[in-house]
């Protein structure tokens, strides 16, 4: 009897395993000869370039100082390190022998040409929403790029995450296939915004928290996540911005890289803005419309507090300059007996206030920190990153800039400063573990990416080309 049960279980198990592998296996799509770039329709390629910029493809697929789209960028995940692949049309190390059908399958189902599962660091859970036309244009654009021979380094993932077949289960749990279906009750611009934000622009990849299997938490959409050692703030009604965002503010920020009462885009948001430079005004506004609709109108309480803040900081409306009306630290007020509690204030007064209370308007003046979302965020990570690394200058054009204070500040001094800033500029109560966050950043335990900021509307002629002039 027992023997018979064991046999039954083993047979059932074997059938399950065989069924699973049969179901989880996908066929290769036949390789093709590398498409002739001269045969491509230039208008289509140009449209594809715009889409690639909206999709931020270059940020992950171009290594610092490397060739455009040749991959090799390391992406740290809780499961190990993944390296981005070469998506130039090189037939051996890139996607030069991929047919358009193979490309579309990768975007929709997360499978490469050979039928292997792709890790969702490549956000096909978003790209699956793309229309045939947009995939067609993206394919044409990528096939028009310079082929680069560069094999991606091997991923360094822990068991069992190094087994690609495990992604069959991940997809079953978390991939909702497209394409995008417009919502009848929404306006055309709003639907366009949904299509871009949820699809190509994959905003949720950073701005939505992830669960333990690395998938976006559908119950906390746009509730705030993380990216490259930075905190990506919540975009929904839990947004920590002192002044609530609206369509016009979001549009100005996404179009220009800064907004006068919200500050300058930096960290991994800086290259996003850079890329949006080639998007149309209508698309940028559509994104703003949809994002503003996530939070809806602010509560009367939030609106009142923002109004008071704007009155205090001297930002009255279009055309007015912030004058740091409230945030004025006198040397007298900040000077104490030099003990730890006073040290933060003294550092702020002597090193920070010089610019941040200068009254010079953004994007080139230092912002009044009472308006800064970083002071209100869930943790001190972004504030620490900015104090240490500053805002690096864009090459060859004017841009907002802040000197970094790495080297000048000890761990204790930076901790004192951050504790002071939170107490001074937020009523949300102190952050926890400030000293640990400071140590992690200063010792390299938490690495964070730094990108040049852009504070004007000008964009490079082709923002996808990230190679240095030298």
């Amino acid at each position: 009897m027992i023997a018979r049960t064991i046999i039954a279980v083993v047979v059932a198990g074997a059938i399950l395993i065989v069924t699973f592998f049969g179901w989880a296996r996908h066929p290769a799509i036949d390789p093709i000869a590398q498409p002739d770039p001269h045969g491509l329709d230039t208008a289509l390629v140009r449209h594809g370039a715009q889409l690639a910029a909206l999709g931020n493809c270059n940020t992950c697929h171009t290594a610092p100082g490397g060739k455009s789209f040749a991959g090799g960028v390391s992406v740290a995940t809780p499961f190990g390190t993944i390296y981005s692949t070469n998506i130039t049309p090189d037939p051996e190390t890139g996607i030069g022998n991929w047919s358009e059908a193979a490309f579309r399958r990768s975007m929709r189902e997360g499978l490469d040409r050979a039928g292997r599962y792709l890790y969702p660091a490549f956000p096909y859970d978003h790209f699956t929403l793309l229309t045939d036309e947009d995939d067609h244009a993206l394919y044409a654009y990528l096939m028009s790029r310079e082929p680069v021979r560069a094999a991606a380094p091997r991923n360094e993932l822990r068991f069992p995450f190094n087994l690609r077949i495990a992604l069959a289960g991940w997809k079953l749990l978390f991939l909702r296939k497209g394409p995008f279906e417009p919502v009848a009750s929404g306006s055309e611009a709003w639907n366009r915004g949904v299509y871009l934000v949820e699809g190509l622009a994959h905003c949720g990849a950073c701005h939505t928290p992830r669960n333990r299997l690395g998938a976006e938490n559908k119950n906390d959409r746009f509730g705030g996540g993380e990216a490259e050692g930075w905190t990506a703030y919540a975009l929904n009604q839990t947004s920590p911005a002192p002044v609530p965002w609206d369509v016009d503010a979001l549009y100005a920020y996404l179009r220009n890289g800064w907004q006068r009462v919200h500050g300058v885009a930096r960290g991994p948001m800086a290259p996003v803005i850079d890329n949006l430079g080639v998007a149309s005004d209508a698309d940028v506004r559509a994104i703003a419309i949809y994002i503003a609709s996530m939070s809806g109108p602010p509560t009367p309480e939030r609106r009142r507090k923002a109004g008071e803040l704007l009155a205090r900081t001297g930002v009255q409306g279009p055309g007015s300059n912030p004058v740091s009306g409230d945030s004025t630290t006198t040397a007298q007020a900040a000077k104490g007996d030099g003990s730890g509690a006073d040290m933060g204030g003294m550092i702020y007064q002597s090193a920070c206030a010089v610019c941040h209370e200068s009254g010079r308007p953004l994007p080139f003046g230092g912002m009044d920190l009472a308006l800064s979302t970083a002071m209100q965020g869930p943790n001190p990570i972004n504030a620490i990153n900015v104090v240490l690394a500053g805002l690096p200058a864009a090459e060859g054009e004017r841009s907002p800039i802040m000197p970094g204070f790495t080297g000048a500040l000890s761990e204790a001094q930076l901790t004192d400063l951050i504790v002071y800033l939170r107490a001074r500029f937020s009523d949300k109560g102190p952050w926890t573990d400030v000293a640990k966050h400071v140590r992690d950043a200063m010792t390299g335990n938490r690495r964070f990416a730094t990108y040049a900021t852009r504070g004007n509307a000008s964009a490079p002629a082709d923002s996808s080309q990230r190679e240095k002039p030298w």
Partner: protein
Amino acid sequence: MVKLTVNGREHDVSADPDTPLLYVLRDELALNGAKFGCGLGQCGACTVMVDGKAVFSCVTPILLLEGKQVTTVEGLGTLDNPGPMQRAFMEEQAAQCGYCIPGMMMRAQALLQNNPLVSDADIRAALQPNLCRCGTHMRVLRAVKRAARLMQTAGASSTGMGGGR
């Protein structure tokens, strides 16, 4: 009263604790190597080393510096016995007007002290915060590479007078 250690020597400084280091170096300690360029930490002419790292002295208040080692270009060597960084800049004739050069040397010194086996790309990336209006960048790059070679052959001592720490 703030105690500052500059080029290995201790000083009791009478300036207010919120005074930028650059002003104290030039006005109180008569160390005029570091230059005032923009006063905003954006041009690099004021660069010095603090505990071996390059910092903008124009935006660094002295209250941050107690117990730390400040090194200026004067700490890299003397007229009679220039350090490898200074020798390299002279041998490559890297200065034109010279205003940016002390800052360039200090940032390069911090880079090479940390690791003398640097690539061209490392040097370019490290020197990015330092501006030169004359356009001597190519000579500066050559000088830093020469300094790297000098330091590798000179062994442990990276400065002419063994200071700098």
